[in-house]
Structures are given as C-alpha cells and as structure tokens.
C-alpha cells in the first residue's frame, strides 16, 4: 500500500535525522552535574569563604566578589571616575586622577596583586596596574578605597605589572610598548625602533608600615614588548621573570611581524644584584622626567598630587649579571612561578607546547656560561640548559598558569577554550575541562603564593554568547568557578562580571574582614574645612568664593536655608558627615551642578564645587536613603544676581514662614 510505504519512508527519514543529530558532539549546556548548586550556595545572611578581587579591565575599576557564591560585593573606583561614589568629582578625590598629562579620567586596569608577607597574602593592600597611561595603584583593604597612584616615566603602557616580590619589597612595571626614553630625544622616526626604542622595567618599593610607593629604580633593556611577569619565591627569591614578545622589534603590523621568531624570551632579572649596583652608584640619575605621585590621606580626607622629575636608571647591557634571556617559544604571555619557586612556566600564545624552566638549571647555566649568544648585549641562555621539560600537546593558545599546592598546575587556553591540569614534575596531563568561552586569566585562591588554597579554580572568560540572557550587541564577560578538590575539575557556576576581568586574586575572608573599618573617627578629622558640629555650621564669603560648612546627620542638613549666593559664585559645599554609626553615609546633590554627587562617610568631609548659572531657588538633598525621614533631608539655596545686596544668611529650623502683609 502506498500509504504504508509513505509512513515507513517517513519513519526511516526521521530516524536517520535523529541519528545524525546524535552523532553531533554534545553541546556545553549540560556540563554541570550533581551537587554543583550545593557547593556554591551561600545561604542568605552567610558569608563567602573568599574575597575575590577581580580587575575591571576597561572599566578602570576593581571589583570584589564573594567566592564561591559569585556575589558582587563592591566596585572600588581606581583609575576611572565613579559618580556613584563621587570619585574624581569631589575636590578631595580629583588629585587621584592627576597625571603628568593632566587629569586622565579613565584607564584600563588589567592585573591585581594582593600584598604578601613570606610569600603568602597578608590581606593589607591590593595593587593594580593602569595599562594605558602607565600607573600603579594601591588599594587599602581597611577602607576598600584607592590610597595611592604612582605614574611611571619612560614607559609606554604598563601591562607587565603590578607583580610583587614575596615580602612586597617591590611592585614591578614592565613597559608593554617600548618607546624612546622620555624627553626631547623622543622625536625620532617610528621605523628607528631598533636604534631608539627602549624597554624599561620599573621597580617600585613599598614601605612596610604604610604601603607608600616610590620609584626605586628602572632597568633599561633593548626595545621589545613586555607582557607579564612574576617574582621568584623561595629558592628563586631575589629574581624576577618577565615574558617578552616582538623580539623581532617590529614597529608595524605586529600581528604578523612580531610572530616570526620561533622563540622570544623570558627575561630573568636578578633584582638583588640590581640593589647592589644601585648601592655601588652604578645607576644613572635621570632628572628631566615628569611623573606624578598621588596619595589619599584618611585624616585630612584629601588627596595630594606631587610632580616628580627624577629616577635612577640601571643599564642592563652594561651591568654584568643583572639580566639573562631564556628562549621561550612563540610570543610568551604568562610566565608563572610554582609554589616552591623552582619551576617557571612560560606560556607561548602561539606554541603547541608549554616549556617549564628550572631555576636551579638556570643558575647552573649562568655559572657554566651555557649561552647561545646575546641579544642587545644581554646573554641568551641555551634553551635546553634552562629547561626542566615540556608539556606535550596541552591545547591551543596557552595563556596563564596557576598552582593548586598539590604539585599540579592548571593552564588556561584561549583558543581551545579550556583549562588543563598537569603535573609539574612529570609534565603529564591529568584533566581538562571546557570554559564558556575563551578563557583569558585563571585564578586559584592563593595560586601564586607559597601555599595555594587548591579548592577552586576560576576562569575569567572573554566570550559569553548564549550563556546569559542577551543584552543587545554587548555582552558581559564572565567568571566560571570549578571545584578542583578532586581528581576531576567540576564546573560549579557562571557569573557575569563588570568590564573585562583580566587577572584576579582571592584571599581567605578572615585575612581581610576583621580589619575592615566601620567609621572614620570624627575627632581625627583634619580636613581644613571640617565642621565640628551643627553649631559650627556656617557660610563664609571670600570675594567670589563662598564656603559652605555643612553638616549631615539623620535626617537634616545644617544649615538647610542659605541666602546671599550670587550667580557665577564659586560655591564650595564642604560637607561633614557627623554621624559616628556604621553604614550611615549621606549623599549630597544640588540642581544644575556640572559635576557629580558627594557620598560622605561617617566622620568624613568632602567638597562639591558648584557655580550657579542662573538666578532662582536651588534645592539640594541627600541622595543615599539614610533613614525613615530621608525624603525630608533637603534644603534650599537662593541665588541672586551678581552684585545683589541680599546678605549671606543661613539657618536650620529658624527661618519661619512670613505672613502675608497686603
């Protein structure tokens, strides 16, 4: 029967289609299994186990997540304006964004480093780099606020940064772009890269007591691109390792021209030797520089910006024993040092293997002068002489490696979009898991310390197509957390992130949370425009400048009626929050201010500048819901025309309604 034939044919076709469909490899969607939810569930009111400080990439900020929940706890403004917190808008915070180029309201924050003591996190500070206008920032973990920003001279983009030594002796900055040294000599043709462009490595010292940074010295090297770096630790303490690319010294179409050499270099720097040379006066003082140093003071509640002009430069070619190159295949990106300090992993972006170098072999090679030549006057160690071994066929596009503290390494692969776990000693691959999609950095809590907490690994992904609800053409980047406590890595959770998370670090909550500040003590407030209490609240005119000494406490401003302001005056609202109670900031905003708001923390003074552009009555109000009567926390300012004879008056609660007189 025809009908029967059709049915049979139809069934056969359907069967064939289904079986083709089942031939296609399974998608990623069902990669989560078992008790994943349980492992990341942090019940309401419970705390996370780790603070995760993740770079905000081109947002210029630092984000703080809880792990394992992935909950966003805070965004700390660092290099970019943040109107939410008044960062860069208040007169006090403006100097933090000063550079030798003037105020730069944005940067690209790539890497974070928690301060270390004895090779482990001490929970005091986080350092972060600005990739565009070269700078290093220090964030104080008692206030979760940026405390210091130091600009770097003789640099063209600070990527290889802010990696630190095991006792936070130095924070380094290797220039991404080699450029001519700062000054008049910089006006050269671009195609004279080989002759004129130099690569500087900045060593910034950190004061043990207060964290203050100073540019201790710079090492001048041949022009290449510096990519990443890590300090030696344990046996290799005293050394620093920098990955380089563009050893071809190309100045155009780097995509092709900087990928020609089979091997670029890892540069090993003996910084203890550098200190010796410095002491012996072998450095060259350079004093035609311009770079700024910005510091925030928690007592004056004000930042200051200082212009600096000098540093000391050590020349790597002239000073023997300071620097050695180690050949490393195909444009290495990450250069990571294992917890013992003996093994150094170079990840060639375009390489089909991962070389692992041995610190003791490097030392032997240097002692035995096992060099294959030199590059720009610096000895190049023979590849085999430095090599511990190679990880064969690990994946495509290795970028970064972290360590689990159990003798294993986990490397991220951008092109093949996966994490691969392998053993450091025997270099055997143990496990691999996909990431969704195209992981860049990865992070194990304490993964760059002497004692990693090998419980989780987090992948920071560049692409999230189909992972979350679509949000137009631009999608969030993401973090993915995996359980690595067992033999097999197990995906637990995806969560979207702010900006682009490059590197991140995580520290046990206990190391940070108990030192977290609750209020600024009002008796320690040394702000020059501090208002001690409501009875000192006042308005003072000095020519065209008007200073309003304003206080806030639930739920009113003092004063809240101000008259005698004139169009075109420079009005400075110095707002002191006289609360001494935790989690009780008050905001301040005024109509028409071509500026931001203030968010004033208990015991703090912050200043908003306002230039009234017209006559009238201007309201101001508290922007942060402070209490049941927050909506009542408001005031009025009367603006009269220039030269008006309305006197300055101000009051709180005494300016009673006038009865009608006609």
């Amino acid at each position: 029967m025809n009908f029967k034939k059709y049915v049979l044919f139809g069934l056969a076709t359907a069967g064939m289609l289904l079986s083709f469909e089942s031939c296609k490899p399974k998608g990623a969607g069902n990669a989560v299994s078992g008790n994943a939810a349980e492992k990341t569930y942090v019940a309401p009111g419970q705390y996370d186990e780790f603070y995760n400080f993740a770079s905000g990439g081109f947002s210029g900020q630092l984000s703080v997540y809880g792990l394992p929940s992935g909950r966003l706890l805070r965004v700390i403004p660092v290099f970019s304006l943040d109107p939410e917190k008044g960062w860069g808008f208040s007169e006090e915070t403006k100097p933090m964004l000063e550079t030798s180029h003037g105020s730069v309201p944005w940067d690209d924050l790539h890497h974070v480093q928690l301060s270390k003591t004895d090779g482990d996190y001490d929970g005091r500070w986080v350092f972060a780099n600005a990739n565009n206008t070269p700078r290093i920032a220090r964030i104080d973990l008692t206030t979760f606020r940026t405390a210091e920003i130091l600009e770097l001279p003789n640099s063209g983009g600070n990527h290889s940064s802010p990696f630190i030594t095991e006792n936070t002796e130095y924070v380094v900055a290797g220039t991404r772009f080699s450029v001519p040294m700062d000054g008049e000599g910089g006006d050269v043709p671009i195609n004279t890269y080989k002759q004129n462009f130099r690569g500087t490595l900045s060593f910034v010292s950190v004061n043990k007591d207060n964290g203050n940074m100073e540019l201790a010295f710079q090492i001048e090297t041949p022009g290449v691109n510096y990519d990443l770096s890590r300090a030696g630790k344990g046996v290799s303490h005293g050394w620093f390792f920098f990955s380089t690319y563009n050893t071809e010294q190309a100045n155009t179409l780097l995509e092709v021209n900087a990928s020609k050499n089979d091997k670029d270099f890892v540069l090993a720097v003996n910084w203890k030797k550098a200190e010796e040379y410095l002491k012996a006066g072998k450095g060259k003082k350079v004093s035609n520089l311009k770079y700024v140093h910005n510091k925030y003071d928690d007592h004056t509640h004000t930042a200051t910006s200082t212009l600096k002009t000098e540093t000391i430069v050590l020349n790597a070619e002239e000073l023997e024993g300071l620097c050695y190159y180690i050949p490393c295949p195909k444009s290495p990106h990450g250069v990571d040092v294992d917890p013992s300090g003996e093994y150094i992993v170079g990840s060639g972006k375009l390489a089909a293997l991962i070389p692992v170098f041995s610190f003791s072999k490097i030392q032997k090679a240097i002692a035995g002068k096992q060099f294959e030549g030199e590059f720009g006057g610096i000895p190049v160690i023979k590849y085999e002489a430095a090599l511990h071994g190679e990880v064969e066929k690990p994946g495509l596009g290795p970028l970064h490696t972290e360590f689990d503290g159990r003798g294993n390494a986990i490397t991220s692969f951008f092109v093949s979009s996966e994490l691969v776990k392998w053993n450091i000693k025997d270099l055997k691959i143990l496990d691999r898991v996909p990431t969704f999609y195209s992981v860049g950095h990865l992070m194990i809590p304490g993964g760059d310390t002497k004692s990693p907490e090998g419980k989780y690994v987090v992948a920071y992904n560049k692409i999230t197509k189909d992972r979350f609800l679509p949000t137009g053409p631009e999608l969030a980047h993401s973090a993915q957390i995996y359980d690595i406590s067992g033999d097999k890595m197990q995906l637990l959770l995806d969560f979207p992130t702010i900006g682009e998370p490059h590197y991140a670090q995580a520290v046990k909550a206990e190391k940070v949370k108990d030192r977290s500040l609750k209020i600024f003590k009002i008796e320690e407030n040394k702000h020059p425009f501090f208002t001690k209490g409501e009875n000192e609240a006042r308005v003072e005119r000095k020519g065209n400048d008007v200073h309003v000494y304003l206080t806030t406490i639930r739920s009113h401003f003092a004063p809240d009626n101000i008259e005698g302001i004139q169009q075109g005056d420079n009005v400075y609202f110095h707002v002191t929050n006289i609360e001494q109670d935790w989690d009780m900031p008050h905001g301040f905003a005024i109509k028409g201010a071509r500026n931001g708001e203030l968010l004033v923390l208990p015991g703090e003074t912050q200043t908003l500048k306002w230039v009234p552009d017209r006559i009238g009555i201007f309201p101001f109000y508290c922007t942060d819901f402070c209490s049941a009567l927050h909506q009542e926390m408001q005031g009025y300012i009367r603006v009269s025309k220039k030269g008006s004879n309305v006197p300055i008056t101000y009051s709180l609660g005494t300016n009673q309604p006038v009865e009608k007189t006609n």
Partner: protein
Amino acid sequence: MKTSNQISLVHRILLILCSVALVVVIFLPIWRIELDAAQYPEGLELQIFSYKLAGQVDIINGLNHYIGMKTLHADDFIEFTVLPYIIGFFALAFFAVAIANKRKYVYLLFIAFLLFGVVAMVDFYVWEYNYGHNLDPNAPIKVPGMAYQPPLIGFKQLLNFGAYSIPDIGGWLFIASGLIIAYCAIQEWRKPKLIKES
C-alpha cells in the same frame, strides 16, 4: 562554747567577700539595655554604671529624636553622683558587720540592703517611665497611645526596636551580695533555735 550572739566564721568570710564584691561593683556596669532592630542587626547597647552611662549613647540619642525622647546625659542624673557613695557605704557596712561579729547587725544590714535594692529599682522604673512618656510634641514620629518606656527587666518591643533590659556583671554581683546576706541572716536566725532544742 562561744556565746550565741556571734556570727559563724563562714558567714563572716562571706560578708567580707561581699564587701570586696561591692567595691568592685562601683567600677562595673550594673545594668544593660540591649536594643536591636532591622537597621541594627549588630545591636545597640546602653550600659549603666554607678557613676556614668556607657555603650552607644550618642547613637541612641541620635535615634531618640525621631520619637521626641529626651537625650540621655549623665549630668541630668543625681544618681550618678550619690550611687558610688551608697555602694561604697554598703561595702564598708558589710566589712564592719563581719568585724563587729554581732548577729543583730547581720539582720539590720540585710534589711537596709533589701530596702536599698527596692528603692533603686523604683527609682530606675520612675526614670524609665519619665523618658518613655515625656515626649516632645513636635517629634517627627508620633504614634497615638504609644509610650517608649523600656522594660524594668526582660523584653519589650518598642516600634521597630526590641528592648531587652537585664542586670550587667555589676548588677549580678550586687544581687549575689543580696542573696548571700539573706542566706547569712536566715542561717543566723535559725541557729539559736537549734541550740535551744539540743
């Protein structure tokens, strides 16, 4: 055999211990009022010493203005001037009774101490009543019929705040001294009878 109007050695030692405890009470918090609310999950605390107020007095005063409650200032209380002397007097009295070694002084001291305890609690109640009821008519928050008198002892909900009023370490030492003098008085009272019967 000793004459029967003397105090037993154990009781005399107990009285001396109470004397020392009462000296210590002068410097310790006697009473505490704990407050918690959704806005203060970590809790606020008012501690009452014999001579001062402690704890988060400024924060509590800041909140009190919403309901028109008077702000708390140690200077407003005559109690903080006289209380250390009264407690000091009792410390001396306990010591003196132990030394004097006369049974009837134990009874007298017990009655005096009990009276002082009652008067102190009445005073505390009146104090709480006044603060809870004498409210500023211009207060932002007015709830008809609502008073904010904290509990004398125990727990009471006052709008969004739960108030929990209990003795603090000094208060417990004070109460212990009261119990010990009561115990001594009763034991001493029973002793002569026992002698007669035997």
